[in-house]
């Protein structure tokens, strides 16, 4: 039987992945250098080499952890379809290779190519190696988003039917309500956001979690975008506001656009790349929405820890991080924080 305990056992994982790979690549290949990456919100990430002859191929297994009725994330088959579609449209993503099948005995998930590089946001923002690259990251972010937003979302069946797509505020309220924790600051934000909600206009294909931390970069620029489990449809201002939310500045609060630069530079780069105007007021509303959403995601991670679905010190810390995000939220609404 496939259990969380089995997944955490590196020997069990190695053997199961070996069988899974040999089913597809043949008996003459071997598996080596298996490693668990940081546990993400919904997917376990396992890196491994496929060795055939002298040239190893580094791959990544993205494995759904215990599927939860509380999870706001796309099921892995939809994630895989999203990856296929954006890859075909030239968005930089790890190349999708195959989806897991029942015979793999690895649960739900898929395998993509591994991409070397840096993902740690603080290093991207603060290390000397990347400090001169911030402007490039900002420009590339605008260009990639502009391109992504032109993809026809109908290519991913079900994407526009998600509650995140049809009723974004209602989706967050529903998610928050599932955890049964009273957070008056978040309730206040719901009320504030409902009162000032702008018209959202056309619905576009959105990454849903496009930010510093969900990309692999090198010293030449952004290599690939990761973590597509929040993809949905919506106003492009949602994506622009999320990218500029205060939570991704990692100590550099002056660098409002993703910790890479100022808002106006990012807005203009997006306008130039997309040919569409950025609605500044709407984007600011989405920034507040984004900080509220991030607070709820921290409650979700803490809940995952307390329910023993996904135990980790990081998820326990998320519970106590929620108040810090609420503090940002209220200070932004009060216009004391930018």
């Amino acid at each position: 039987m496939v259990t969380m305990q089995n997944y955490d056992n590196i020997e069990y994982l190695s053997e199961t992945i070996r069988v899974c790979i040999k089913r597809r690549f043949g008996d003459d290949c071997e598996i080596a250098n298996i490693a668990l990456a940081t546990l993400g919100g919904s997917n376990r990430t396992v890196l491994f080499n496929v060795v055939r002859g002298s040239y190893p191929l580094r791959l990544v297994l993205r494995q759904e952890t215990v599927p939860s009725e509380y999870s706001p994330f796309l099921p892995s088959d939809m994630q895989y379809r999203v990856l296929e579609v954006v890859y075909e449209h030239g968005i930089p993503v790890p190349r999708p290779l195959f989806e897991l099948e029942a015979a793999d005995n690895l649960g739900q998930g898929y395998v993509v190519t591994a991409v070397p590089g840096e993902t740690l946001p603080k290093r991207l923002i603060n290390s000397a190696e990347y400090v001169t690259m911030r402007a490039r990251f900002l420009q590339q972010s605008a260009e990639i988003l502009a391109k992504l937003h032109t993809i026809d979302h109908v290519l991913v069946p079900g994407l526009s039917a998600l509650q995140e797509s049809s009723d974004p505020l209602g989706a967050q309220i529903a998610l928050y309500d599932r955890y049964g924790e009273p957070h008056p600051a978040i309730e206040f934000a719901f009320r504030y956001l409902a009162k000032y909600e702008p018209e959202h206009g056309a619905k576009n294909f959105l990454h849903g979690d496009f930010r510093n931390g969900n990309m692999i970069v090198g010293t030449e620029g952004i290599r690939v975008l990761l973590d597509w489990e929040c993809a949905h449809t919506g106003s492009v201002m949602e994506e622009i506001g999320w990218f500029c939310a205060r939570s991704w500045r990692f100590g550099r609060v002056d660098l409002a656009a993703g910790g890479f630069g100022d808002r106006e530079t990012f807005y203009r780069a997006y306008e130039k790349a997309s040919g569409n105007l950025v609605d500044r007021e709407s984007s600011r509303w989405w920034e507040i929405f984004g900080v509220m959403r991030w607070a709820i995601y921290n409650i979700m991670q803490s809940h995952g820890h307390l329910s023993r679905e996904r135990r980790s010190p990081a998820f326990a810390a998320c519970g106590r991080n929620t108040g810090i995000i609420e503090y940002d939220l209220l200070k932004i609404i009060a216009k004391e924080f930018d």
Partner: protein
Amino acid sequence: MFNDPPNASELLLTVREYIEQLLPDLERQDKYHGLCCAYLLDVVMRELEEPPNIGDHSNNALKALLNNKDELSETEFMSSLCASIRRGDQDGNLDRLLILLTSHVSKKVRVSNPDYLDTKDYL
């Protein structure tokens, strides 16, 4: 109940110091979780040291908003306040509520990350 020393704070500090010693030798993933553990111990130490009446003023003011005369537990009171905000009962009080909630949240941040607070919210 009387316990022999070390007291709870000293015990936590002992564990924290040991984690600190381990951190330089840990690899990326373990180091990250080690740092999280050190942070969690800091939170617990601050929580043990926090005077229990800090923030009572804002809590009492929030209770006054609800005309709360019942003896509700802290969780029951927070749930009632949330329901009241959700129903729109506080829509006429939003400016005042924002100030009181900032004070309420500041109390949590004083425990989770006091360095994050604006000076005026610290006191």
